[in-house]
């Protein structure tokens, strides 16, 4: 379909059943990577059923009607490469990398993942694993402060739903609820399969047409896994105070409204966050170089219908007031002291280098290809090279335009302090 940098060949299209396939053959690659990218995540969990998307992600590794969990795990290990999965707010991703000669088995195994049997004993064992995962994160102060900030910022917006869910919501999810979730979220129009690396494009397409084209496990559903309507969050504008006995460090986390993944100024928003809170940034020189805090950062997160700037710090408890004031002032000052052309150029080059150098191997390229091309609507294939070029081309005027769309005057967040 189209050629790209380094002799890579790209092809994107629909299979007869509605599922999309993107292949990138790379003559320089020595390995191959493949992944199913599902346009459904925690924000699509039903009210009271928080944690369903994540629970389902775990259960896909428990085997199909044809394979037990143990057999599936043995196949995955036999392939030898790295395999894993993750659930985020808007996506669920299953990925694997291996040797080119094992590609047929690798694809067959991935296909089997998406036909889970959802056996009751497997669901019960995995529920225990997830409850342990919830306990693990709940024991980390950094996660607690982030969750408190997100609760203040997102409120009842679906993007505020916890990915893991709570012990109560996970305890209440049964086979029927999980099966409903599976059929709704994994309908073919929500699924993109990406295969990249040392591959034969024709072989992969003929495999996919035969194995995935006609016989998707579920009919194309009319229910969408996507957000019901475009919506912006209504941040509380409050800074919630939390106390944790015995803590050594104070931590702050804050958010402001940002831009959506489809906004033309998305790269400029990322550059703005980088010059404010990346390496060699305003927050670095204000808080880290001075030694007032041992971490301070700001980033831009983009979702399908909205976005956010999120950042935070860690410092000595007796410096928390001063560091909070300086952190918020440094961010708000982006309006009063606009970024200079040198700051913009420096941050843009850093992000371009980071993106470009991180797209070296098929296992690295897979994520950019999958996450960037999962939303439908454009026939253009987005590559890591496109992202690199977008960052490199960001201008001071575009960064200024982001500042006129997004205000840093009214922070929402949380502050975690030691208590007695």
């Amino acid at each position: 379909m189209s050629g790209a940098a380094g002799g890579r060949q790209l092809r994107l299209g629909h299979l007869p059943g509605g599922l999309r396939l993107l292949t990138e053959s790379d003559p320089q690659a020595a390995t191959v990577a493949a992944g199913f990218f599902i346009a459904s995540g925690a924000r699509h969990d039903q009210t009271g059923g928080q944690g369903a998307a994540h629970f389902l992600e775990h259960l896909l590794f428990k085997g199909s009607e044809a394979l037990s969990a143990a057999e599936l795990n043995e196949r995955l290990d036999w392939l030898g490469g790295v395999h894993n999965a993750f659930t985020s707010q808007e996506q669920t991703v299953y990925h694997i990398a291996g040797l080119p000669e094992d590609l047929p088995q690798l694809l067959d195994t991935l296909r089997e993942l998406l036909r889970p049997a959802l056996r009751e004993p497997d669901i019960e064992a995995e529920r225990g694993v997830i409850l342990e995962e919830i306990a693990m994160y709940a024991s980390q102060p950094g996660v607690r402060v982030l969750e408190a900030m997100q609760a203040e910022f997102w409120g009842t917006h679906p993007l505020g739903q916890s990915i893991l869910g709570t012990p109560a919501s996970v305890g209440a999810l049964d086979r029927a609820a999980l099966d409903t979730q599976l059929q709704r979220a994994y309908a073919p129009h929500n699924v993109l399969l990406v295969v990249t690396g040392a591959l034969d494009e024709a072989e992969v397409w003929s495999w996919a047409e035969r194995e995935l084209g006609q016989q998707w496990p579920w009919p194309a559903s009319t229910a969408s896994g996507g957000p019901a309507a475009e919506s912006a969050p209504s941040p509380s504008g409050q800074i919630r105070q939390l106390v944790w006995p015995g803590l050594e460090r104070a931590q702050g986390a804050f958010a402001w409204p940002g831009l959506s993944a489809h906004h033309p100024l998305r790269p400029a928003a990322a550059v703005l966050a980088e010059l404010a809170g990346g390496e060699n940034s305003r927050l670095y020189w204000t808080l880290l170089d001075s030694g007032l805090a041992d971490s301070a950062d700001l980033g831009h997160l983009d979702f399908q219908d909205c976005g956010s700037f999120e950042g935070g710090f860690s410092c000595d408890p007796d410096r928390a007031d001063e560091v909070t004031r300086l952190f918020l002032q440094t961010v708000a000052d982006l309006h009063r002291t606009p970024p200079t052309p040198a700051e913009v150029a420096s941050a843009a080059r850093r992000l371009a280098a980071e993106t470009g150098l991180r797209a070296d191997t098929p296992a690295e390229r897979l994520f950019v290809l999958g996450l960037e091309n999962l939303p439908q609507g454009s026939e253009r294939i987005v590559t890591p090279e496109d992202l690199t070029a977008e960052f490199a081309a960001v201008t001071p005027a575009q960064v200024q335009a982001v500042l006129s769309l997004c205000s840093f005057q009214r922070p929402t967040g949380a502050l975690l302090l030691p208590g007695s």
Partner: protein
Amino acid sequence: MTFTPPSARPAAPAQTSARPVVPTLPAAELFTLPGGLTLAAQPRAGAAFAVSLRLPWGSAHDPLGLEGTAGVLEEWLFKGAGGRGARSLANAFDALGLRRGGGVGAEATRLSLSGLNADLPAALHLLADVVCRPELPEAEVPVLTDLARQDLEGLQDTPEERLALHTRTEVFGGPRSAAVGHAALAGYGHPVSGTHAGLSAINAATLRAAHARWGAQGSLLAVVADLSAGEILEQVEAAFGDWQPGAVPKATEPHFHAGVRSHLYHPGSEQTHLSLSWPSVGADHPDYLPSQLALTAFSGGSASRLFHAVREERGLAYAAQASSLLLGSQGFWQLGAASTPARAQETLDVLLAETERLRAGLSAHEFERAQRGLLTGLAFSEEGLRARASAMLRDLVLLGRLREPGELHAQLRAITHEEVNAYLAALPDPLPDAALVTLGRAPLHLSTRELSA
């Protein structure tokens, strides 16, 4: 249960043209520069380069009483170099679009850069400025030692980090008596951030003395770029040609405290965390590769013994894993897991039962999967730019030379199932010597066997 890889394969297309040929790298070459720096130069086609410099000075080499020296010194190097102040040095890295990596470990300090080919000469000069010509402004020392103190205190707040910190102290802490007669080294008992006492004692003079030791002698530089090995050498000589030798690097060995049992009360954790360590073989031991293969079967994937028994079968923990640890010339196995208090003892009991069962050997299928896992891992370490630079440094540290292309592949292929099972059968029971460290609201017990002894 037996497993045979699926036999159904997609039919090969009629036109057999396009099965990609896996590219192989040209051989890397080794050079030694006059000051003693060893260069591994790897030509590789592509738009980008990767450079990784390894100085043989890590936190284990911190002088006794000056714990934190390597970590603070590494930060100090970036506070200005080559006539530039801190800001203008940071801007110089950004101007070239360089990606920086590395950091201080127990054994060594690594400084890594990657960027686009045309910028390699300038990147090497910047790196040489940082290492050989830092400004070392005295006013920064109190700030940097205070940042290290903050980092050290931050380790107390997360259960995983606090457990790792406590394990270092209790299991690997204390200088070796062999160091008597020389300036004693602090060893492996403290984190890179140091200790409160060490950070209070560090000053500009002690740091300058450490910097004078950090020289070309024993340092290793890996460069992967789209140039011939000779061209890479020329660029490195231009940047690092006048780097002084520094001090002779010192070998340091961990002081393993066999049989330690230690519990740390941590009420903020909803789980009980555990770490179990025992001595294994070092990287130069003939059993090293068989031991790595056994470890892969034990904990290297979703079908591995620990993952299956703890997570898949019983749902006791989110993660339970074993890893190998190389400290000095010695090797260790370290097991770790975390479960809520009501299930934590069962998690530990399952880990112990699986450890005992491992000595009875692997099945043929387990052996095959583990061998394939290690071989596939090799392909990944050859493919990425930065992975290739790291692999060359690892060869030089562990073997003192670069492996021939295909050498490790052939060694892994040559290991037999019988050899691995013979290695496992000959292992002594590791538990009497094992060190157990736990963290949470209540301690765990090693075994009923031990309690009744």
